[in-house]
């Protein structure tokens, strides 16, 4: 086994709590109604292509991209469209959803390969592969849900040197990526080979944290068996946020991405292992992204009640919670995503989206905020920040409202990982304030860029 590597600065070591790691992926049954969100990817919301009363098949396109950075959305079930209306998402905000009543019998749309066999032979036509990834609505499943076809097509001036497959899964509790790496390693490796080919044959490193030895072994075996060129498995040290895009690039390539630049500027493309699986299914099987894996876990849930589910997109979280045995007693907070970066579930009737990765039941002991006290200048937050920022300073600048100084001190580079908040002995809500500051600074930067663009155009027209 290759030696373990990690990123160079900051990071914290929360208990990994991967309680559901031994639970094999089960297929979640379908509810009577699903609600498919039109905003389940980064960028512009998708535009519905169906109307109320239409009957749809599983895998049929029901919405088209609403812009360059956007994605197709497919029907996760066979049934009848009942309505297209705003509905509350996880955070309680209104988002357009397509409501589909599920029919008894499932009929898949035409052209989708449903045979179980592994297809290892790669197609030769790169644009056709990209087109399939786009047409099947594949987005990054590591959390940001950035449309994959955009990321895999960095333009003629870019020189991708390394495709990094992110199997770090550094968030505590989550085990969905671990399960797919153990159960479907070959598909993931074929997906990686496809992306490698699209990027022009660069090398590919699959990074997996050391607390998942079964995954490292399974992936290593799959790589050796399939024999694609230039793919290797790299064990990583257990350290949060190992799975952060910039941290992973630092660990694997020893390169730092400049402030405001994209990973491709240092020759890196980072994709999650779940995305790789989706790419495999899209390209080799022509299957749209309508399923994903989700962990039902938490510290107040006995292990026999924890599950990893293969769910269809659009299934209400309340249905999953009920199917898994109801909300346990002692659950003080429900979280979707990991405990470090996930969002609290304000509305349990919200529906799963492409990027849903978990339902966490956390006890009060883990989630209750402790009273804030004064900063004692210990500097733990600055030590913990993996981006090399000074959270205590940014917090003070935010309170003073000094946007210029915030920008000079790179508030916009915050990756919102929460290491500062996690390490603060005074329980100062550093992350909450810095996130606000980041939003305001980004607003200023965008306004400046827009003004510069307008000025350039005006000069051109004269």
């Amino acid at each position, binding site marked *: 086994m290759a030696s373990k590597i990690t990123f160079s600065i900051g990071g914290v070591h929360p208990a990994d709590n991967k309680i559901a790691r031994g639970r094999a992926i089960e297929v979640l049954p379908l509810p009577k109604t699903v609600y498919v969100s039109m905003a389940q990817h980064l960028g512009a919301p998708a535009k519905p292509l169906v109307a109320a009363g239409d009957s749809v098949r599983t895998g049929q396109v029901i919405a088209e991209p609403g812009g360059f950075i956007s994605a197709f959305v497919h029907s996760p079930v066979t049934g009848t469209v009942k309505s297209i209306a705003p509905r509350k998402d996880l955070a309680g905000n209104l988002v357009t959803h397509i409501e589909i009543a599920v029919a008894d019998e499932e009929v898949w749309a035409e052209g989708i390969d449903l045979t179980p066999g592994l297809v290892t032979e790669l197609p030769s036509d790169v644009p056709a592969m990209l087109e399939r990834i786009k047409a099947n609505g594949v987005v990054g499943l590591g959390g940001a849900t950035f449309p994959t076809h955009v990321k895999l097509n960095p333009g003629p001036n870019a020189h991708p040197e390394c495709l990094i497959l992110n199997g770090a899964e550094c968030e505590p509790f989550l085990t969905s990526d671990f399960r797919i790496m153990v159960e479907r390693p070959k598909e993931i490796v074929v997906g990686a080979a496809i992306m490698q080919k699209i990027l022009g044959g660069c090398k590919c490193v699959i990074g997996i944290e050391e607390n998942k030895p079964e995954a490292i072994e399974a992936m290593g075996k799959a790589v050796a068996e399939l024999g694609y060129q230039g793919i290797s498995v790299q064990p990583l040290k257990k350290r949060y946020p190992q799975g952060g895009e910039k941290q992973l690039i630092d660990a694997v390539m020893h390169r730092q991405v400049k402030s405001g630049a994209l990973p491709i500027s240092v020759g890196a493309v980072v994709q999650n292992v779940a995305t790789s699986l989706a790419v495999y299914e899209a390209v080799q099987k022509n299957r749209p992204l309508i399923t994903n894996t989700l962990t039902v876990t938490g510290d107040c849930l006995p292990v026999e009640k924890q599950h990893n589910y293969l769910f269809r997109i659009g299934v209400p979280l309340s249905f999953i919670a009920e199917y898994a045995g109801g909300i346990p007693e002692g659950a003080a907070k429900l979280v979707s995503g990991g405990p470090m970066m996930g969002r*609290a579930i*304000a509305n349990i009737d919200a529906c799963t989206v492409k990027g849903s990765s978990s339902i966490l039941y956390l006890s009060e002991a883990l989630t*209750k905020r402790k009273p804030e006290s004064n900063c004692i200048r210990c500097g733990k937050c600055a030590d913990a920040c993996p981006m090399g920022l000074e959270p205590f300073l940014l917090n003070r600048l935010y309170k003073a409202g000094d946007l210029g100084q915030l920008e000079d001190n790179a508030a916009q580079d915050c990756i919102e990982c929460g290491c500062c908040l996690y390490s603060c002995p005074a329980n100062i*809500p550093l992350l909450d*304030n810095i*996130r606000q500051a980041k939003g305001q600074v980004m607003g200023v930067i965008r306004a400046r860029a827009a003004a510069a663009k307008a000025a350039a155009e005006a000069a051109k027209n004269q």
Partner: protein
Amino acid sequence: MTSTVIWTIVILTVLGLLLALILFWVARKFKVEEDPRIDEVEKVMPGANCGGCGFAGCRAFADAAVKAPNLDAQYCPVGGNDVMKKVAAILGLEVKEKAPQVAVVRCNGSCENRPRTNVYDGVASCRVKAALYSGDTGCAFGCLGCGDCVSACQFGAISMDPATGLPVVDEEKCTACGACAKACPKHIIELRNKGPRGMRVYVSCVNKDKGPAARKACAAACIGCGICVKTCTHDAIVLEDNVAYIDYGKCRLCRECEAMCPTGAIHGVNFPKELDKDAVKARIAERQKKAREAAAAAEPVAVKPAAEPLKKEENNG
């Protein structure tokens, strides 16, 4: 000894004169001409530097006012018409009187009306809360209750009412600078004309949900039923995105809408008498009956052209 003293005095005197000459030359060469009226205008300003006028502070306002050809774009909400008259007198310009305004909180979501659906224990800031989620009630539009408006107010005019969990504006202290309206991430605070003797009628809700959803989230929400629009004889109410809005420029304070509102989302404040809803409703019913009879008597076609010009007016306004 004496020669040292003399030399010192001579050198320092010469040096002093030399530097004075340089300063004199610099002062003449780089003199910035500044209109003396800027200082005069600044003196009559309230000096709160609140930014309610849209300028960086009172001096920036004075500077802009002196340079401007007229005072149409300048208005000091804190000083009001009195200060603006003084400014106009200094500058020899005319100023139009503006109706005094006041900040109005458009949310009815007290603890009673709007049951809490979850508990928020994050940072006590509306801005942070709004960035995280829609709020701890079923209503995604209403007051978040963390008091960003209270901390934004420089005049101590807003306080949180612990009983309702909503901000309350002290009309005596409010200067309508608009800082609270800017601080509110949900945009529920609006500057409205104070009205004669403080009397005004407004829709105290901004919920854009459809009727049943709005009602479920809050007992006193505007459900967008449009009864107020139909009732209003002054064409002052518009219904947009399932929420009614009363144009304070057109409202004649008849309070008919307030009487007819099924949820009590329309508030009338500072009226000397309490509203007798039944009497007003009877009056409206009587009037509508008469109108129906008149319409039945006249040709039905005659109704249409009367409705169309009204619509056009709305668009123009």
